């Protein structure tokens, strides 16, 4: 009898799609309302079901990655993929020093974040996936219209950034079981380079208009959601080799067996 139970349990655990502890499954949304309004997304954007890491990638995780992939070590990484401040807060190429294993890794470029996720058989989340996930709070999938939710997130931006970063996962999990989407760090997204928000050349008129092909002027659909708008402004101002002291990442992946 016990043997049978064990067998059933084993089968359940090995079944495709069985949850891994580090990943949360998100159901998606057929018509998610982004804070960004492109001309072609007025009716919402389809977010397919996907998985997202429950916490941002930590120094400990990233150390294991650079050990296995020396071309991403500080001092070895090609300059074209990461600027000179890449991992400068670590004591050495393989020594996080005062940066604890449980703190989120920061000062990583978009290229490095992408390479890390690829090494896990994953990818960076798209902006829309990140925004959709980050709309949740502890009890609701979309808490964005709640002024108290907005207040709480905005308060984080008022914290001095000199304060040491908390460990990953130290804030309560949201309704999906995900931690730290707000209140800890900024996070890279796969399509950071598509957030055509910085110095919107379309407004300048004249020859500059030719820089853009097709429709898609970007405006803010929800101007009250400052916290999320600040994210997009920040990401759109960055180059892919840039690093900052508050910018890290987490990975996403498609659901096993899902058609892309």
């Amino acid at each position, binding site marked *: 009898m016990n043997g049978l139970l064990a067998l059933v349990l084993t089968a359940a655990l090995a079944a495709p799609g069985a949850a891994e502890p580090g990943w949360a499954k998100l159901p998606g949304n057929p018509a998610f309302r982004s804070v960004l309004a492109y001309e072609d997304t007025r009716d919402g954007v389809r977010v397919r079901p996907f998985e997202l890491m429950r916490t941002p990638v930590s120094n400990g995780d990233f150390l294991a990655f650079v050990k296995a992939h020396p071309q991403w070590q500080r001092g070895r990484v090609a300059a074209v993929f990461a600027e000179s401040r890449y991992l400068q807060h670590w004591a050495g190429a393989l020594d996080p020093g005062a940066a604890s294993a449980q703190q989120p890794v920061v000062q990583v470029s*978009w290229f490095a974040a992408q390479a890390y996720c690829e090494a896990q058989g994953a990818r960076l989340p798209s902006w829309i996936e990140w925004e959709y996930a980050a709309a949740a709070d502890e009890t609701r999938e979309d808490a964005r219209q709640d002024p108290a939710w907005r207040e709480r997130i905005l308060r984080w931006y008022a914290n001095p950034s000199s304060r040491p970063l908390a460990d990953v996962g130290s804030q309560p999990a949201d309704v999906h079981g995900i931690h730290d989407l707000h209140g800890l760090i900024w996070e890279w997204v796969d399509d950071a*380079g598509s957030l055509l928000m910085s110095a919107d050349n379309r407004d300048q008129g004249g*020859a500059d208009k*030719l820089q853009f092909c097709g429709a*898609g002027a970007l405006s803010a659909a929800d101007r009250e959601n400052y916290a999320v708008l600040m994210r997009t402004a920040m990401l759109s101002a960055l180059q892919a080799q840039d690093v900052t002291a508050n910018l890290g990442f987490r990975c996403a992946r498609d659901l096993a067996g899902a058609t892309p």
Partner: protein
Amino acid sequence: MTFFRNTLSALLGGLLLATAAAAGGLPGDSVYQLTAGFTDQDGHDFHLADRVGKPQVVSLFYTSCRYVCPLIIDSAKAVERSLEPAQRDRVAFLIVSMDPARDDPAALRGIVDKRSLDTRRWTLARTDKAAVRQLAALLDVRYRELADGEFNHTSALVLLDAQGRRLARTERLGGAADAEFVDAVKAALNAAGD
């Protein structure tokens, strides 16, 4: 004597270049550090590092684009025309599609034929979606796929030196070639040796 010295230094430069490439010794700030595979309009596979040796004018486009993309090719052609015939043979043009789902080699070939691009100098190429993002990031071209399959994107010509390092860019499209950019191309050709 000057001629001899130039020839010698060009030869030595060539040797050094060959050695560096053989050793995988690309400069760290070379765009050719991107190791993704590309395919050209004739179905030939290549890597960016294969293009070491000649300065390149690089840009992104997609074949079904009706408005700005033809201007991208126009602008690159204007740069080509503003060079002396002898200079033209020492520069290459690489235009990569941001629409890998639709732009197969046949679609790229169609543009080569339609625009009468000389494939001794011109390469239209495709790669996978992830590599397009990476290349776009390296060239600082921003783009977003729209719901209807069109793309919203910034447009630029980027000049790379013989080792793939970024030297200059222009976002001025249409009309005459950007004189400053053309000067940069000529300077790169001089630096690459006669």
